[in-house]
């Protein structure tokens, strides 16, 4: 906990979260507002918020992984162990991304309204929970995919900045657009743009969890052995 709190403080105090936050605000509040119509239901809005999380989480993760000078990381690793320290540095941006995701969900509910029965205007609670559950799950998948992509393509796995930035950008575009990507599948499964489903939501979630497990393990393994 102390390690996560340290990494979180480092990320927040370094102001490196501001870029991703601006991207999120532009994506969800700006672009999202322009592309979605009222009356289309809550799900497309939640899907859009989830989708925006992929680049936002990737950027947050890269910010965290490049925030700490090697020598101060060494001091922290001596105190907390190199593996646990790296794990904390991977958890911290996920916490920030999750906070963004929740803000996005609240905003979509506020903007698009809750599903109501025709005529009586009563809230259709079952449908609301189904929508919210789907939105949360899609958001989580997108968060995990954004994290995994950035972890695999940034320090300590990829050290050169040019390669890391280009690779991360390319991978994020792929994660959003390729219909084999869990993020893409999760978003489609809750009905964004009304396209046909690719994978069931559960498969997308399992794929995202698997991807994160692999990416985080590789990153921690390298961090525990690296030189500087």
């Amino acid at each position, binding site marked *: 906990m*102390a*390690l996560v*709190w*340290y990494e979180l*403080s*480092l990320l927040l*105090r*370094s*102001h490196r979260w501001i870029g991703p936050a601006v991207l999120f605000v532009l994506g969800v509040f700006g672009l999202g507002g322009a592309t979605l119509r009222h009356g289309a239901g809550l799900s497309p809005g939640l899907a859009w918020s989830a989708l925006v999380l992929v680049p936002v989480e990737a950027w947050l993760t890269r910010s965290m992984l490049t925030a*700490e*000078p*090697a*020598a*101060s990381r*060494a*001091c*922290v*690793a*001596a*105190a*907390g*162990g*190199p593996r646990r320290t790296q794990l904390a540095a991977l958890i911290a941006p996920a916490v920030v991304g999750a906070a963004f995701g929740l803000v996005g969900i609240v905003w979509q509910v506020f903007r698009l309204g809750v599903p109501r029965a025709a005529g009586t205007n009563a809230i259709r609670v079952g449908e609301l929970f189904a929508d919210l559950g789907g939105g949360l799950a899609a958001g989580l998948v997108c968060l995990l995919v954004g994290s995994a992509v950035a972890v695999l393509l940034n320090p300590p796995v990829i050290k050169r900045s040019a390669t890391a930035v280009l690779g991360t950008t390319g991978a994020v575009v792929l994660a959003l657009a390729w219909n084999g990507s869990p993020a893409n599948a999760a978003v489609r499964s809750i009905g964004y743009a009304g396209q046909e489903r690719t994978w069931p939501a559960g498969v997308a979630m399992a794929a995202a969890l698997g991807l994160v497990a692999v990416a985080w393990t590789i990153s921690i393994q390298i961090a*525990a*052995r*690296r*030189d500087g």
Partner: protein
Amino acid sequence: MRLDNVAKRYGFTLPWVIHDVTLEIPAGLLVRFEGKNGSGKSTLLRVIAGVSEPSRGSVTGRPVTGYVPERFPPALPFRARDYLSHIGRIHGLTGRRLASAIDACLDRLSGRELAGVPLRNMSKGMSQKVAVAQALLPGGGLLVLDEAWTGLDVEAKAALDEAVAERLADGGSVVFVDHEPGRLGHLEAERWRLDAAHASRVRSDDSAAGETRGSEQRPGPEDTQ
């Protein structure tokens, strides 16, 4: 704690930086590593401090560890006290114990006025005091000093010498590297020389180069136990 056949390299195709180092660091022992630039001293200290895992071999029984790196970066977005609080909490200190440990470490280095200074605004000497303070925070166990004296003023250097002596007297152990040959000369130290990635012990009656030998054959007090 002990190191068994520890070897380290930073890539499969790269040469070994340290190779087959076996040594024991019992409580109360002061160990000095010597060697040319690039002989692997810093790497060995990082492995001993637990900052980096060895590529081969094992490190066992490491106590609570404070580590002072060769260069401490001031580029962190914290004030000194906030930074020290974070490190203290990672060591498991909380509340009043944490506050008093921070005060004690800063006072010892006459750095109390640094508490509110952002690390970004610090000179080399000031940030070095913070680097030493964070390593002293746990107040026991192993202290690993990689040229920790560099950049400190005369009083702070003396204070660090004193902290080392105290740590040893309290049953902790200290491992260090310093370019100053007389550093901590007043304390009894086990000296090791790193050469061509191998470590060999320098006997006290032989201040020149120690004989290089495999650690398995190394006669030492711990082998006779």
